[in-house]
Every structure is written in C-alpha cells, then in structure tokens.
C-alpha cells in the first residue's frame, strides 16, 4: 500500500516539477507548483513528518501560492514574453537553453552518484524504528518541544527573518511618486468629515499633503 502511494506521489512530484519548468504561461507554472507541493506533502507523510506536511500544505500551497497568483495576475503574462518578442527565437538563445539542460543533466548524475553511491548502508533500509503515539517522531508535540528547547535560537532567528522580509517587501513595492489627481477619495460616511481627508488612504502612506 505504501509503495503504491509512494509511486503515485512521486509521479505527481516529478510531473509538477516538469510542468513548472516547461509550461509557457507563468500562471500555469504556479498551478503546477501547487500540484507539486501537495504531492510532496504526501511524501512527507510517508516519511512520518506529519507536522512538516501540514505546514507545507498550509503555508506553501496555501499562503505563498496565493501571493504568487496575485503577482502573476497583477504583472500579467503579456509582459512576460516581451523579451522573447524583441529578440525572437535566435540560435544563441536555443544554444544556451540546450547548454542549460545539459548542465542540469550532469548535475542530476552527480547528485545521484553522491546520494545513492554513498557508503551509508542505512540508505537502503526503511528508516529507524517507529511506533505510533501522541508524542512520537514528527508529531506537532514533538516538533514543538524541539523548537522551544534545543532549537530556540533558530526559531527566534526565523521569526526575526520573517519580520525583516515583510518590512523589506513593503519598502520595495511601495509607490514612489505619489498619487495622481484622479485618485481622490470619496466621502463614505459622515465620520469622514471629522478627520483629515487623507487618513487611512494610500496618500497618507506616500506623504502627499492634501
């Protein structure tokens, strides 16, 4: 049973990865990555990593992919092929693409030799012993205990890194040249008469004086 599940999930993982690389429209690439991530979560479950699988589905296939879909919809895919339209499918581009594929194949061979030709005999085994239980390997309780004891520093560093990334994304993607005159705000409620006109709008963020 677990072998069948493994091969189904592995086929999904590899097909999703091929779809991301091959499909022309970035929107379809994002959808292929979602399929890839969900299949990868099945593999994580087979490896008894329950919490990581759940986090993978919730954080990656949920939140991060929604972010991707929004940006693809905002940027649009017609601008994606701008460079290809300017240059056309020249011989240099296809030669470089072929060279990239060859380097990738060489990388695959090298990693396979390193991983599978290793002297570790445990690679051929099914892993360490495992008995189901509320606090065994891979459950949320186990991961939480590790994160708050041995790996507390890594946990705090990760949270700080997320804070820095959030601030950095806001700084990078904000408007730099103010608002146009056509972006006036309408009066929505009677309370709007009481406070300054720009309160709570983009104009306050970019510092335009009313």
């Amino acid at each position: 049973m677990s072998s069948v599940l493994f091969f189904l999930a592995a086929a999904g993982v590899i097909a999703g990865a091929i779809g991301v690389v091959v499909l022309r429209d970035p929107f379809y690439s994002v959808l292929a990555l979602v399929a890839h991530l969900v299949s990868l979560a099945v593999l994580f479950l087979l490896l008894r990593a329950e919490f990581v699988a759940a986090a993978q589905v919730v954080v990656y296939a949920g939140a991060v992919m929604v972010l991707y879909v929004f940006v693809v919809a905002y940027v649009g895919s017609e601008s994606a092929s701008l460079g290809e339209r300017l240059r056309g499918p020249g011989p240099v581009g296809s030669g470089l693409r072929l060279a990239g594929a060859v380097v990738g194949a060489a990388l695959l061979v090298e990693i396979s030799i390193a991983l599978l030709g290793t002297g570790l005999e445990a690679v051929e085994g099914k892993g360490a012993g495992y008995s189901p239980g509320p606090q065994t390997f891979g459950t949320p309780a186990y991961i939480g205990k590790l994160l708050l004891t041995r790996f507390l520093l890594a946990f705090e560093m990760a949270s700080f890194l997320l804070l820095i990334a959030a601030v950095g994304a806001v700084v990078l993607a904000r408007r730099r040249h103010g608002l146009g005159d056509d972006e006036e705000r309408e009066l929505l409620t009677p309370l709007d008469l009481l406070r300054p006109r720009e309160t709570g709008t983009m104009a306050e963020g970019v510092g335009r004086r009313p």
Partner: protein
Amino acid sequence: MSIAWYLAVSAIVFALGAVGVMTRRNPLVVLLCLELMLNGGNLALIAFSRMWGNGDGQILALVVMTVAACEVCIGLGMIVALYRRRLPIDVDELRELQG
C-alpha cells in the same frame, strides 16, 4: 520503500529546478524553480531525518521553508517594483549592473 527512493526523487526535483533556473527568462518562473530546488533539498532532509529517527532534519526543513517564504516575499516585491518602473520582466534584459 527504502530511503534511497526518496533521495532519488529529491535529486530529480533539484535538477529540474536547476534546469528551470538556467533556462527560463521570466523572473517569476525563476523564483518558482528556486522553490523547486529548495523542495528537493527539503525532501532529502526529511528522508535523512527518517533514516536516523532524529527530528533535527525536520526542524531544518521548517527553517528552510521559512527562508523560502522570505525569499518569495522579497522576490515578488522586486518584481512588482520592476513592473511599476515599466522595466521589462525578463532577466536577460535587466543588465544595468553590468559594467
């Protein structure tokens, strides 16, 4: 299934991601292929964690997921900034740093 099968899948996913990073020109797809490479690494980490029955690999995989989320956040912010400045969304056209 023995651990070696999982490692083979992770190697294939990593190599596919590397091919995508090298061949695709849309920075959005390059970011997606970076995600593929990180996922290949994550799968190997969790397979090794299962091999030794030790949770450290799973913690490292969670940290890698956090770093990937930060990278996506900054990368998409940069793409939105490029789009706002009407620059081409193409990694081959963006060569202003070249001397």
